[in-house]
């Protein structure tokens, strides 16, 4: 019985770990001083699933690393910036999710969240047909969005089948 419970737990953990953000590098405009950075740090750490946060005041780069199991969403990252009176710009992400859509119109669905991105190549387009319906790891850039919004596009750099 214990083996079944353990196997079930591992299976669930494995499923959850296959569909989420692993790292988000978010550029933030407007932070001029230490309390600004500290406020961002506190707000990001308040998002369940965030494990480490690093803020570089001189580049405006906020580096967020997430736990292996999480359901944090891009909207939460953006709101953590907005509530402190700053502006979020492009975000470089590493995320796992399910590749859906049709040939020529691919989407990444980050399950555990409502985040769904239309994929467009950052440079040259890759043939993604063979990955349709599979869980993939994507690196790319989520472009800046208006306040309160999340971009529906992800400019991917690499897409590989998740192990």
């Amino acid at each position, binding site marked *: 019985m214990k083996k079944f419970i353990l196997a079930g737990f591992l299976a669930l953990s494995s499923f959850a770990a296959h569909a989420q953000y692993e790292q988000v590098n978010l*550029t*933030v*405009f*407007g*932070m*001029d*001083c*230490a*309390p*600004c*950075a*500290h*406020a961002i*740090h*506190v*707000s990001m*750490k*308040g*998002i*369940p699933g965030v494990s480490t946060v690093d*803020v*570089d*005041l*001189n*580049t*405006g780069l906020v580096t967020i690393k997430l736990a292996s199991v999480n*359901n944090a*969403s891009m*909207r*939460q990252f953006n*709101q*953590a910036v*907005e*509530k*402190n*009176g*700053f*502006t979020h710009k492009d975000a470089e992400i590493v995320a796992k999710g399910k590749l859906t859509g049709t040939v020529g119109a691919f989407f990444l669905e980050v399950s555990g*969240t*409502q985040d769904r991105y239309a994929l467009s190549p950052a440079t040259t387009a890759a043939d993604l047909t063979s990955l349709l319906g599979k869980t993939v790891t994507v690196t790319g850039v989520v472009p800046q969005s208006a306040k309160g919004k999340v971009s529906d596009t992800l400019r991917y750099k690499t897409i590989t089948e998740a192990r």
Partner: protein
Amino acid sequence: MKSHLILACALALPWSAWASDHGPVFSYATPVNSQGEVSFDTGIFGRGGSAGTQLSTGSGFGYGVTPHLTLTFLLPATFGSGSLAESRMMAGGEWSAGASWRFLHSVTSVGKRIESTASLGIVAPGPQQDSGVLGSLHRAPGVAGTLATGLASRSQYLWAGAGYTRFAEASNDRRPDTLSWSGVYGYRPTKLRRGYDQWDYRGFAELTGEHTGNVRTAGAILPNSATTSIWLGPSVLAIFKNIAISGGAQAPIFRDASGSIYGREHIRFAINFSYLKYSSHASAH
């Protein structure tokens, strides 16, 4: 005197210096609290002149309702017996409560923003009577408004602001209306533009000025009771994460005040401590 100082340290800072946790200690500036942020300021403001010395403190609290709207509240205290002119740039013995609205917020690049903030509040007489000419007046509440605009960046800061306070009449007495203004330049040297987990320092040159109208007592204007003064001096702000300490001093570069009524005020100084409690509350998906 010692007990006064200890009590003063236990209390806190004036309304006009609400932005001190992020900015200058004497002048008007634009920063407001983050959404959900609670700020607490405590410090001492001193004024010294030929007619005596006055120390002022207040316990200042702020709460960020939204990223651009902050509610403020000040519990004041004054000590000393100086016969000094009305001032809204320096703390007095009034309670005050109000709101600051950052109505313009333009983020132009990494570390840089241009913004404007307006504040409006009510001012009510505190439990302590002023000293000197103002101490003999019946006191009534008033309204105070300020407007500040400027630029904040990793290297430089520049703010300009102005404020106006008007008191109501009480038993044919009325405290003078006060028009105040300030300009401040701040600089953070290259070597000090470092990580947020280290102390963050910057220096300011603060220029402040005030014009106070005539004092009205027993239904009559007190002759020669209007004043105008301009002050200039340096201040330093040091911040570590959510704790800030600032201090500065100013000397007069222009004074037009009756020596027989107010004496000659020759120094102003301030020391302030701030604690900022940021909200870690995360929104749902």
